[in-house]
């Protein structure tokens, strides 16, 4: 199979398969989670806390002061990675073209050089996160195969995209094919790894916020 | 100066250094380079117009001009239909195409002798 054939497979059948697994898998997981249900809290809800679930979805995106001080590297690298990843995903012109083509929605792109710099920063942050995970005894103890797999699945599109953008290591056509394939692998694995947090974090934040609000905790 | 003119001028400067030091220059092929609009003009402006200009009629006209920078020549080769077939900047004391090929020198001597012998024969006949 030559590079072009690989690229065409990635842009055609590969994408179809990945999308099917991704969409079906995500829905399956969501149904599974919601159908588990929770025990009804029979206590009287405290007053004035009706929106605490919704509020927590947003408020938990901001760092807690005590935790920020205690594990600053985790926060710094975590924010850098997440923000950088979304900028690269949403503001590189070819990516926007993909969204426009599939969903009909489009928005202006950022200059390639800016997205490029941010991507590099994101890759560095991810590498440091892996290093810190391996170095820190507690983190290492808590890490499972899922954590490392999720890291690799996230790193692959970033790295291959960066290398493709700069025409490094492999011919561009081949690297672009690998980049698209790595994204497809990410989509396929998303429902079945810790990467599901992209969706489940909203559910758990709402649940936690609502439960705490019910008890009258300050949020 | 925008685009690709500046890097080309740096390359020409390096070739001039080499020519001054070792006597060996070099050339930059202009066709085949991704010149942006304006690059070509910028190059011409930076190099200027020099003292020597020669035209060669061989497989169409070739114009070879020394630029204002001594040792830097601008060569434009055209075919019989005046289309540019090659264009280059030569860094040399004299472009190879201007020099007479050694075989042609030998041939010229032979041809001249032939003409002389024909002429002498003619004189005797009178």
């Amino acid at each position: 199979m030559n590079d072009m054939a690989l690229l065409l497979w990635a842009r055609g059948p590969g994408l179809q398969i990945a999308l099917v697994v991704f969409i079906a898998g995500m829905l399956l997981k969501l149904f599974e989670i919601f159908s588990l249900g929770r025990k009804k809290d029979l206590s009287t809800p405290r007053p004035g806390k009706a929106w605490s679930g919704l509020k927590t979805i947003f408020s938990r995106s901001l760092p807690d002061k005590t935790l920020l001080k205690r594990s600053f590297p985790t926060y710094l690298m975590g924010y850098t990675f997440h923000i950088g990843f979304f900028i690269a995903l949403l503001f590189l012109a070819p990516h926007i073209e993909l969204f426009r083509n599939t969903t009909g929605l489009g928005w202006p792109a950022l200059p390639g050089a800016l997205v490029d710099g941010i991507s590099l920063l994101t890759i560095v942050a991810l590498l440091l996160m892996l290093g810190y995970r391996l170095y820190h005894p507690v983190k290492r103890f808590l890490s499972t195969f899922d954590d490392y797999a999720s890291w690799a699945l996230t790193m692959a599109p970033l790295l291959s995209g960066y290398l493709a953008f700069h025409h490094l290591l492999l011919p561009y056509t081949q690297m672009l094919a690998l980049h698209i394939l790595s994204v497809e692998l990410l989509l396929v694995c998303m429902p079945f790894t810790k990467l599901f947090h992209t969706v489940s974090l909203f559910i758990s934040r709402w649940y936690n916020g609502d439960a705490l609000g019910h008890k009258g905790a300050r949020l | 100066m925008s685009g690709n003119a500046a890097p080309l001028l740096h390359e020409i400067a390096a070739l001039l250094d080499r020519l001054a030091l070792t006597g060996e220059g070099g050339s930059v092929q202009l066709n085949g380079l991704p010149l942006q609009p304006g690059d070509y003009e910028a190059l011409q402006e930076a190099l200027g117009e020099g003292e020597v200009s020669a035209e060669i009629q061989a497989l169409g006209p070739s114009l070879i001009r020394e630029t204002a920078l001594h040792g830097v020549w601008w060569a434009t080769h055209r075919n019989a239909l005046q289309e540019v077939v090659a264009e280059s900047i030569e860094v040399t004391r004299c472009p190879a195409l201007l020099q007479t090929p050694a075989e042609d020198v030998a041939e010229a001597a032979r041809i001249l002798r032939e003409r002389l012998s024909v002429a002498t024969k003619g004189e005797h006949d009178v």
Partner: protein
Amino acid sequence: MSDEQSLGALLREQGISRRGFLKFCGAMASLMALPGSMVPAIAAALDKALRPSVIWLSFQECTGCTESLTRSHSPTLEGLILNAISLDYHHTLQAASGEAAEAAREAAMKQFFGKYLLIVDGSIPTKDGGVYSTIAGVSNLDMLHEAAKGAAAIVAVGTCAAFGGLPHANPNPTGAVAVSDIIRDKPIINVSGCPPIPVVITGVLAHYLTFGTLPELDDLGRPKAFYGESIHDRCYRRPFYDQGKFAKTFDDEGARNGWCLFELGCKGPTTFNACATTKWNQGTSFPIESGHGCLGCSEPNFWDAGSFYHALSTPITPVGRAAAVAAAAGIVGGAAIAMHNRHVKAAARSGHQTVTVNDLEQASGETK
């Protein structure tokens, strides 16, 4: 027919001076992307080069490749190089026709066995024994096998011969394949493009004439001197891509300003060819310069690579239906899981037994 006369002698016979020859060599060096310092060596080699016999076979093709080569007006480089070879068979260009033409081919194949250069344009249909394209009653498949046997090397001219091209495109009714799919034991140079740039065809011939060897090839068998870099990398509009300035339609402000055509489907980033630098029509321009994106015609399967007008980063097949099917499957599967979960919970509730402290004490007493 080929003879023992050297190329230098032949050109001088045609009244071309040594300076003219040197100029020709200089232009060829620039054509082959060789440094100017190599011109004397090229001149020396070409001066002594013997005219090779060339057999040109046209199979399932549109004659566009031959048109591309011959449209260049003489006396151009192309003309000179064509004069420098002995074109012993080319059924569009040769004067002879019918049996005389085929006899010329057979004579050349016999006389120069092992030495002639075979040029092929067009793909080769293989379905149903190759009946879909024949010359003088001989299928292209058989003729290729026969002619390849005595060839020193094969040049596959055009995307059809190099990668299958248009006849190979889905659904490929004739089972068309590339030369390299059939011939495995001969050196093959792919000069792809629909059509290839004329000077690229002649550049390969010039290289063969000069060095007697094949030029350095990429992983798709194309000469690196011409296919070493992508259209995108050599495009004069590249700075706009880097700045994120794109034409959105063919007649908007961006298009008028000459901005990047990526969003209009330009395949420049994945297309390797010399258009951006060598250009077309005696160096006039190339498609992107005329405001149209690159179609990617020098790459395999370019007809099946999705719309010419959709960006490279978009899917080549619509994803809507797949997404809908997936969503339906997800909902059905999810509902099944939910039912199962409810069932488990209900079973747990109904199986629940109340336990008193006495029961527990009794149980622990028994185990002791």
